[in-house]
Every structure is written in structure tokens, then in C-alpha cells.
């Protein structure tokens, strides 16, 4: 390769056109992305912080400092605490479910069997469908009068009338958890599957030769080696669930009686529908610290994966 770099040095020495000035090109190529991000992410982010300390509303957009008033107001509001708690519960429970189900699904997806393409297509539907439309599909499944689930349960004699899936607080929460899990599992499964494929095949062969049956191989070899990937999948899923308001909005509007309200949906109701932009911004900001923690965790994991 020495000949090539020699020639290249000659070329770059000879030509000084814009197309070659790497020192200039690098930042130039980055500029559009940086400007975009700065203008439409960094600025609004700072703005959101600013709003939280102001009295801005939809009706009166003038900016006046009010110090910590907004924060006091939301801390006094039991719905806020409800939302905070719900956000954690929702994310935590669904993530545990997602990890278990996605691992099983990944194993299925890497196996070979007839009709695999069909299973793959169907299994990805929850992920590829726009969230709101998927939620609408579930809205009908869980309808308080016509739910087919209820119909089956009634036919089996297990229940008398209807289960108000979205009407009772605990059931509503369970429904939201179910829908979130349902839509995240395909994504997590794909990530885990990618990790599975990149496991060295010879290690798997050696385990077979060494006499490990299916379960032992899974527990002692596959899963320990996959832990970083599984963790990354779980964290991504957690982030997506944590910050999502669509499912709650479409399914329950946060009800019944704010039983399924989460931080992001509450921020919407307070800020946009309620008009109090300042309070909405304050509520939404509580998403950030946890996201930061999750992000750092992901980075560490990815780094560790690359090293080993």
C-alpha cells in the first residue's frame, strides 16, 4: 500500500480545490446536521427549561419569570405523582415481559421451519404498524361491549358479562402494559436475533459435542454470552416505552380518572389541551434524568461488547 499513499500524497499536494481540503470538508459535511439538531432540538430543549420557570400559556404567550411556582404546582398535584409512578411501573413491568418474550421469539426467528416468512411477517406487525393505528386495533379488541376476548371467555363460561378492560383502573393499566409489551417485543427480538447470529458458531458446536442439551446450552452458554445484547434491547425498549404517550392517549386518554396517566401524556393534557405550556414543559422535563441514565448504561454496554 505504500505506493498508493505516496501517489495520494502527491495528488493532495498538487490539488488544493475545495473537494480535497479535508480539514474544511469534515466540518462542512457535518454542518447541516449540526445546525438542524441545534436549532430544532437544543434550542427547544433550553426553551422547555425556560418555559418551566415561566408563566407562558397558549392564550398569553408572553414570557414572565415565576421561579419555582410551576414546580410547586405540579408537586402539589396528585395526578403528577400518579403519572410518575405509572410511568415507572409501566416501563418496568413491560420490560421484564419484553425480555423474556423477545428472547423466545428471537430463538424462534433464527430456527428453520416451513412458513417462516409468514411468521416473520406477522410477528413484525406490532412494530411496523404506526403506534396509533395499532392502539386503535386494540381499542376494538378491548371494547367494553363487543370485545371478542370477552366473547370467548363468555363462551367458555369463565365470565358472565363484560370485563371492562379499559374501564377499570387496574385492568386499564394491565391493558396498557400489554399493548406496550406487544409492540416492543418484535423490535427487541430483532436486536437479540442479530446478537444471536453473531455468536461464534464453533462455540455452539463445541457445546453440542460436549453434551449440553437444549436447556443447558441455553442457560450456561447462549444467555450469558448474550447478556450485553439483551440488556441493550431492554434499554431501548424501556426508552421507547418510557417516552411514549400514544398508546395511553388512544386507549384510555389517561383514564379512568387518570389511573393510566403517564408523564408524557399528562404533559400533553396539561400543556396543550389545558393550555398551560409552562406546567406542561415542567412535567415533560422529568423524563430527562432517567433517559440520561439509560443512555449512559447503553453506551457502557456497547463498549464492553466491542472489547470482548
Amino acid at each position, binding site marked *: 500500500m505504500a505506493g498508493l499513499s505516496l501517489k495520494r500524497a502527491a495528488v493532495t499536494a498538487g490539488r488544493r480545490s475545495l473537494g480535497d481540503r479535508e480539514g474544511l470538508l469534515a466540518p462542512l459535511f457535518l454542518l447541516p446536521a449540526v445546525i438542524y439538531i441545534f436549532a430544532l432540538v437544543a434550542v427547544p430543549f433550553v426553551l422547555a427549561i425556560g418555559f418551566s420557570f415561566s408563566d407562558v400559556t397558549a392564550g398569553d404567550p408572553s414570557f414572565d419569570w415565576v421561579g419555582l411556582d410551576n414546580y410547586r404546582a405540579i408537586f402539589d398535584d396528585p395526578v403528577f405523582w400518579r403519572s410518575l409512578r405509572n410511568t415507572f411501573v409501566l416501563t418496568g413491568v413491560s420490560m421484564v415481559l419484553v425480555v423474556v418474550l423477545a428472547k423466545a421469539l428471537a430463538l424462534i426467528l433464527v430456527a428453520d421451519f416451513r412458513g417462516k416468512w409468514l411468521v416473520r411477517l406477522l410477528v413484525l406487525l406490532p412494530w411496523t404498524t404506526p403506534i396509533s393505528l395499532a392502539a386503535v386495533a386494540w381499542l376494538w379488541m378491548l371494547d367494553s361491549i363487543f370485545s371478542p376476548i370477552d366473547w370467548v371467555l363468555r363462551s367458555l363460561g369463565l365470565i358472565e358479562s363484560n370485563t371492562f378492560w379499559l374501564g377499570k383502573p387496574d385492568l386499564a393499566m394491565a391493558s396498557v402494559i400489554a399493548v406496550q409489551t406487544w409492540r416492543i417485543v418484535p423490535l427487541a427480538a430483532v436486536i437479540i436475533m442479530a446478537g444471536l447470529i453473531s455468536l461464534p458458531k*464453533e462455540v455452539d*458446536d*463445541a457445546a453440542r*459435542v460436549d*453434551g*449440553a442439551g437444549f436447556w443447558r446450552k441455553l442457560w450456561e452458554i447462549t444467555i450469558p454470552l448474550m447478556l450485553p445484547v439483551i440488556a441493550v434491547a431492554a434499554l431501548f425498549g424501556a426508552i421507547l416505552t418510557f417516552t411514549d404517550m400514544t398508546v395511553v392517549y388512544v386507549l384510555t386518554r389517561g383514564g379512568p380518572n387518570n389511573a393510566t396517566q403517564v408523564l408524557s401524556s399528562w404533559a400533553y393534557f396539561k400543556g396543550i389541551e389545558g393550555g398551560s405550556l409552562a406546567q406542561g414543559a415542567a412535567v415533560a422535563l422529568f423524563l430527562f434524568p432517567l433517559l440520561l441514565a439509560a443512555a449512559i448504561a447503553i453506551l457502557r454496554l456497547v463498549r464492553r461488547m466491542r472489547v470482548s
Partner: protein
Amino acid sequence: MPEPRRAGNGGGPEQRKAVVIEARGLKKHFEAGGEVFAVDGVDFATREGEYLVLLGPSGCGKTTLLRMLAGLEEPTEGEILIGGHVVNGLPPRARQIAMVFQSYALYPHKTVLQNIVFPLKAEKMDKKERRAKAQWAAELLGIGDLLNRKPRHLSGGERQRVALARALVRDPSVFLLDEPLSNLDAKLRTSARNELRMFQERLGTTTIYVTHDQVEAMGLGDRIAVMYEGKVRQMGPPEEVYEHPADTFVATFLGSPPMNLVDRGDHLLGFRPESLLPAELVPGDGSRTIMSLRVSRLEYLGGERHVHGIVSGIAGETLVIARLPAGVDTRVDPGETYEFAVQERDLRFFDGATGARTDPRPVRA
């Protein structure tokens, strides 16, 4: 490596009796390739305690064959017998074989001790017994003090020994080795080759060893099975395969530089570079073939000289190589033409169409 202790020395349990592996009409084809047969009809039988080498270029099917013997793949056709019983359909563990992979396939998240103990967990052995056995295997291979390390902290040679210990610990009837030396530095390879062979001789376990390196094959094997395009072209002791190759593939695959082949119409005439010497050094009139060699290039390699040139007088002009050992001082200059000769008993004849060896033909024009 320290002197391995013999079985029954208080070291380990008694070794199993060496068994014979047989392949009968083995074929393997993969769906993806359509009609591509990775293994296209292989028959052989090892001897007890033999060190058999499967030799061939990449893609010849040797690894697929090994994997079928191990039970990692099922043959499309044919049978595999271990110890006289058909083992088709049996998973690897039940076949009592041990395998060492090219990359050693150590479990990266486990320590050396845990790696060696792993196969024992499948047997109903209690923890103390398992540990004792693992210890025995480790010391046999000279890695007894590495038991608490993880694979990533080991050198290539050490990893190989851990792989061997893991294989040994199961008292297998057969060892299957898939190019275990190819990941080692060239320097290490020769000494590792030596140790491996001594190791196997002491254990007396039947071993099948896959490689693409013909020097390794010649140095290690009791017998060599030369494979190409899914078939075994020839199987026999190193001398037989080298001196009496069954076809042109075997003839040119073994030996470096490869056998010279001269086209004579309906057959090919072959002779090894070391058999091609200056005429004055080849005795006898009636039993030698003389040819003119116009030298194009001379390579001086220290222990020997390789003479590249065009030969004529026995067929059309052909590029050949002559290998002159250090003791031969005859002056050879590029551009000059000399008389070279080959002893008639060193000539080999191959059919022009099939490449298979045929009976000698008259050589004089």
C-alpha cells in the same frame, strides 16, 4: 509438555479401548447449492488407534466429512459406524467423540477449569470427581496452573491445550481435530505438531485430523486420505501417497514444488522435481530418460536450489522445476541449456483424459 502419566498411574480412569470408525457411501448435499455435493461418496475405515489425516484444499469437503462423523450434521446418504455400530441419528455426545475446533471454541465467559469441567456435567459425576478429573487432564497437558484464567488471557498455544484438555476429559473413543494448528504462529506450529503426535501415541486413541497443509499431513499421519471435490482420491501411508499417487490431483497436491507433468498426447508423464537431476548424476543408460532443459530462472533457497526451465526431447516444450539439494554443486546458469535426466523407476504415467494413474508407457520417442 511434561511427561504425561500413563493411565492407571493414579492419574485418571482407565482409557477406553480404541475403536474403528467407518464411513460407507457417505454423501452430503446442501439445499442452498442445489445439486452441489459437499461430500460425494466417501468410504473408508480407520484402524484402531490410528492417526488418520484428511488432507485437501479448502472446499474439498473434509470439514463437512468431519462434522458428519461428529454428529453435527446428518449425511444425506450413507452410514457412519463407530465401534462397529451405525451411529446415524445419534447426537454428538452419544457417539463418545471429542472434537477440537480450528478456533478452539473455548467458552469465553468461563474459566479454564469451568471449560474443562463442562462436558463432565453431562455425566452423573459429583462435583469433587469432576474437579479431580479436570485437574488430571489439565496437568497432563501442562496447564495445571492456568485453571483460574479466562480464555482471553491465554496465548494461542495455551488455548489449544485447554481445548485438548476439554476433549481428553471425556475419555473419548475418537478424537476429531479440525485444523487445530492453523491459528498458531508458524514457529509454534512445528513444535506443537510434534507434541500433538506424541500425546496421541501415548493415549492410543483413534484420531482423525483435518488439514490443508500437506507438510503437516505428511509429518503427522499414519495414513493420509487426500480429498478433492467431495471424494477421497487416495488413502494410504505418506510414502505410498507421495511416491505412488493415484491421480494427477494427488500428484500435484503433495510435494512442494509439485510433480512436473508433461503432456504426451493421450497420457501425461510425471516426475518429481527432486528426481530431475543433471544427467551426469543419474546413473545407468538403459534405465534413465534424458531430456534437454533450457534454464529460465534459478532460485537459491539455502538448503537447495530450484531450477525453473523449459524441457524438450520427450514431448512438446513444457515448463518444469528441478530440485537440486545442497550437495549437488553442478553449475547451472540461466539462459543455458543442459542435459538432465530422470531414473525410469521415478517416472509416473497418468491417463490424459481422466488423470488416473496408468501403466508405464515407452518413453523413447
